[in-house]
């Protein structure tokens, strides 16, 4: 079989598979622990756990269905048509071409009026997607750099990243809910004096402990997964446009500008961090511990991976 220039990156695929597998493992271990606690203490853990799972599931489905509306509202973005001015026309034209190259349905196009340069795409699948760029971004980048950024965002849509990350977060949400419910049960039920008192307290304490551990571990894994998916989107975007240098240039421009913007804007953007092209809060200035909490890989890492794409594209057949 002839090797294609567009072959996927084995290393990245392996790492992502491992992370997803670990998340699944943690979920299974969590369920086992809850069942174990229930069996050992004869308590009604099943009811509490079920309640938490249903509630968590509800949040998850709700956020999936409304992700586009929520994201647009939070960013202060408005949908634009190609006739809404030269910026809108350019944005539509670039998105048109990316969709034609990638054979994807065209998403709704929105512009957010802020000087902070950034772009995001959201929506539960390709048919309900929205892509948004800020006026600050369009002002700073040329057409090719903008194309690279938008191709990265469209890759998130193609990879169904909103769905994947929401489902991955499901476990953390359920664990957090269980933690809270156990905590409050302990608070309110702690004054009873009857035979089951010892058991009930033990059970609740155990649930809380397990939930805290699960929450912490899955939080770190989810952040790790998010970083890998950013790299995957970088890679897909660069392969689609065939211009990894344009994407590198855009990354450098955007990352540099991000750190110079006053803190007012950054705090407003924190909630949308996961969707953004570059993280709105730049914790990275040298500190290595903060890297494991970051939703985005470091600039150096992203540039290095794009170098790999460049080499791959220029190899002769």
């Amino acid at each position, binding site marked *: 079989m002839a090797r294609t220039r567009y072959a996927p990156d084995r290393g990245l695929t392996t790492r992502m598979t491992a992370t997803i597998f670990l998340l699944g493992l943690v979920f299974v271990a969590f369920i086992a622990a809850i069942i174990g606690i229930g069996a050992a203490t004869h308590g009604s853990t099943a009811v509490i756990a079920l309640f938490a799972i249903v509630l968590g599931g509800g949040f998850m489905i709700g956020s999936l269905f409304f992700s586009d509306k929520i994201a647009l509202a939070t960013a202060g973005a408005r949908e634009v048509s*190609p006739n809404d001015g030269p910026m809108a026309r350019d944005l539509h034209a670039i998105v048109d071409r990316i969709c034609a190259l990638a054979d994807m349905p*065209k998403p709704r196009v929105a512009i957010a009026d802020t000087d902070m340069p950034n772009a995001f795409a959201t929506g539960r699948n390709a048919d309900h997607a929205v892509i948004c760029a800020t006026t600050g971004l369009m002002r700073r980048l040329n057409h090719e750099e903008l194309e690279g950024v938008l191709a990265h965002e469209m890759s998130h849509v193609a990879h169904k990243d909103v769905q994947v990350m929401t489902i991955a977060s499901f476990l953390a949400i359920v664990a957090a809910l269980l933690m809270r419910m156990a905590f409050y049960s302990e608070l309110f039920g702690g004054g009873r004096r009857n035979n089951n008192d010892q058991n009930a307290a033990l059970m609740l304490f155990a649930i809380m402990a397990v939930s805290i551990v699960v929450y912490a571990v899955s939080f770190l894994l989810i952040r790790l997964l998010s970083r890998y998916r950013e790299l995957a989107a970088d890679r*897909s975007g660069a392969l689609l446009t065939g211009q990894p240098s344009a994407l590198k240039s855009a990354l450098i421009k955007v990352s540099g500008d991000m750190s110079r913007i006053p803190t007012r804007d950054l705090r407003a953007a924190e909630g949308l961090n996961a969707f953004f092209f570059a993280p709105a809060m730049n914790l990275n200035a040298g500190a290595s511990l903060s890297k494991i909490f970051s939703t985005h890989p470091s600039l150096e890492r992203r540039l290095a991976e794009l170098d790999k794409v460049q080499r791959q594209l*220029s190899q002769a057949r």
Partner: protein
Amino acid sequence: MGFLDTLLGRTKPVQPKLDDLFALPSAAITLEAGTNFKPTGSGSVCFRAVEGRSFSDVEKDVRDLLNASSSAEGGLPVEVSKDSYGFTWLVSSRMSDELEALVTDLHAVNSSLVDNGFGPQLLCTLVAFRDDQERRLALIYLYKRGTFYPFAPLPGERRDNALELEVKGVIGDDLKWESDLSRWFPVWGAPGM
């Protein structure tokens, strides 16, 4: 994209469909019979160039190929231009009654790119038409979808949608039309129109 590819974030680049382009000559006959639009003899391939030596070598080979074939028949050399969005257009001009030869040329360009592994870079092909009132029309072929759509620009970056739909009706089933109207994207200022 398969489930596993989505899960692991691996995008498979989309390969172009090349053969549906050959339906164009017979569709042009139907078009001329039903309206007054005749081919101008100009056709172009639009693709996204890839950075690096490998692609520029392939691009040069493709241009030489086209030039050789057109000069052998006393035609014009191929024009290469880049539009404002960074896409490259290779424009081939033939006599207006040589639509079949034009389509063969365009197919040769496509096959060259595909054979060298750059199929995913192909965006669209445009064949230009004009009627006796000097109205412009293009039939655009989307490689990744294997479908056509009409494009009738008017001055001031407007589209003559009525004309486009009329053309689609006249040609009817002779061509595979793009059913998703949001994919009928405009190519303002396309060379060769």
